[in-house]
């Protein structure tokens, strides 16, 4: 790890000013930044420690809206009683992510800035070509070992999977990220690679995430996050789905449904085609399975990750069926 200078910011304003310095990077939980600095991927000249800013870790949950401070720890949000009751998919996405130790360190703001686990991205010494690290250098994954790579939102420049869980639940429920001066949908905050794989987030120099806001809804209250992976725990998703469901008074007709996918796309992936196909329809397993296939429209595989095209719709269907059973 290259050395850097260390500054502690004691206010958001101080963090914003320091974040605008060339080569400066913000440090919250450190689980991404210190890891990537050790890999030689992140080479900050100055590390701005924002973890001691007071008042930025509040978790406020009301029926119509949750506001989660950027420095709230993943573990605290996952175990928060009102988050569990009003936004179960958010709690489930959090406790199924990483390990207990990492969840005690990682913050909600930092979680949104988590980088891909693409093994080529993480290994600059052996794989100099990576459009995320070095724009224009090429993609080592394409033509390489692609079992863990994305099938949705990919481009010729990059097929790296977005690895997070929380943001998948956030995009399902129209959450917004508060950057101080502006707010934007979490769905728009994440950028698919296109020709500019190095741009993963719509965040500008000097901007600091201060909070995440999630609108409350009946679908959010009846929601779940299902994560399928190579081992039972402490692993990134092979495919995951955040689903929320609201039924009509008859207990079987879909009034509102939200569906988002993780583990198979280059960014947290909302699948409105599935939602539209099921709205106003009675819950029916065959129809749910057929609608779930719509999530794979435009999917492109690179051989070894082909299985994810078959897997992801089944994860969506399982989540919808699980919510339907709790009617």
């Amino acid at each position, binding site marked *: 790890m*290259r050395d850097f*200078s*260390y500054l502690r910011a004691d206010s958001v304003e101080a963090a914003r000013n320091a974040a605008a310095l060339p080569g400066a990077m913000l440090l919250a939980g450190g689980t991404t930044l210190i890891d990537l600095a050790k890999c030689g991927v992140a080479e900050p000249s100055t590390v701005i420690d924002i973890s001691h800013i007071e008042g930025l870790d509040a978790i406020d949950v009301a029926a119509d809206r949750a506001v989660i401070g950027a420095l709230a720890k993943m573990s605290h949000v996952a175990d928060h009683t009102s988050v569990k009751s009003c936004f179960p998919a958010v709690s489930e996405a959090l406790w199924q992510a990483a*390990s*207990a*130790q990492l969840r005690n360190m990682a913050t909600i703001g930092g979680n949104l800035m988590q980088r891909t686990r693409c093994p080529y991205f993480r290994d600059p010494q052996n794989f100099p070509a990576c459009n995320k690290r070095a724009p224009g250098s090429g993609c080592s994954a394409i033509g390489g070992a692609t079992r863990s790579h994305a099938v949705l939102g990919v481009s010729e420049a990059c097929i790296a999977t977005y690895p997070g869980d929380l943001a998948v639940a956030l995009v399902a429920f129209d959450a917004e990220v508060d950057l101080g001066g502006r707010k934007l949908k979490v769905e728009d905050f994440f950028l698919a690679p296109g020709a500019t794989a190095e741009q993963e987030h719509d965040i500008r120099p000097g901007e600091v995430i201060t909070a995440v806001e999630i609108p409350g809804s009946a679908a959010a209250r009846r929601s779940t996050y299902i994560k399928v992976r190579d081992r039972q*725990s402490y692993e990134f998703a092979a495919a995951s789905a955040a689903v929320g469901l609201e039924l009509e008074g008859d207990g079987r007709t879909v009034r509102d449904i939200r569906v988002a996918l993780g583990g198979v796309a280059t960014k947290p992936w909302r699948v409105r085609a599935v939602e539209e196909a099921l709205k106003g329809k009675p819950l029916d397993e065959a129809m749910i399975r057929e609608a779930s296939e719509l999530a794979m429209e435009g999917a492109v595989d690179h051989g070894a990750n082909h299985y994810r095209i078959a897997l992801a719709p089944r994860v969506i269907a399982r989540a919808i069926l699980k919510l339907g059973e709790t009617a």
Partner: protein
Amino acid sequence: MNDQVTISPTTLSLNLTINGRTQALEIEPRVTLLDALRERLHLTGTKKGCDQGQCGACTVHVDGERVLACLTLAAQVEGRSITTIEGLAGEDGTLHAVQAAFLEQDAFQCGYCTPGQIMSAVACIREGHAGSDEEIREYMAGNLCRCGAYPHIVAAIRQAAQELRS
């Protein structure tokens, strides 16, 4: 200490509170809590396994919560209270209930992961995440044991959780 310390222009003077004692350190900003503990303070009970946040061998408590020392900068925890495996037993050497349960259940083979397992288990019980074997396995997933002593580790945590509850 026999390592040569080069004082860079960015050397930091830190006071860390470790196991109830304040320790003064002069270190580069990039030094992790793990390296500060092991290489500077010679508290080698905290182990370096992967050094990448994947194995849990370096688990310590910061303000009572389990974290990974390998992904924590020493500078970041100035002002916090740090507990390592060396600080777990009583002043008179009486073992913590989790330490005693690990001995009784033979919850290790080579022992390298054990300090991290124990620090993690103490927090796991305190968090209320040791209610069943299934829950213990889920909430201890961040601590790998290459000898595969998992069944005994789960048994030790189950036993200690029962003792600490009663």
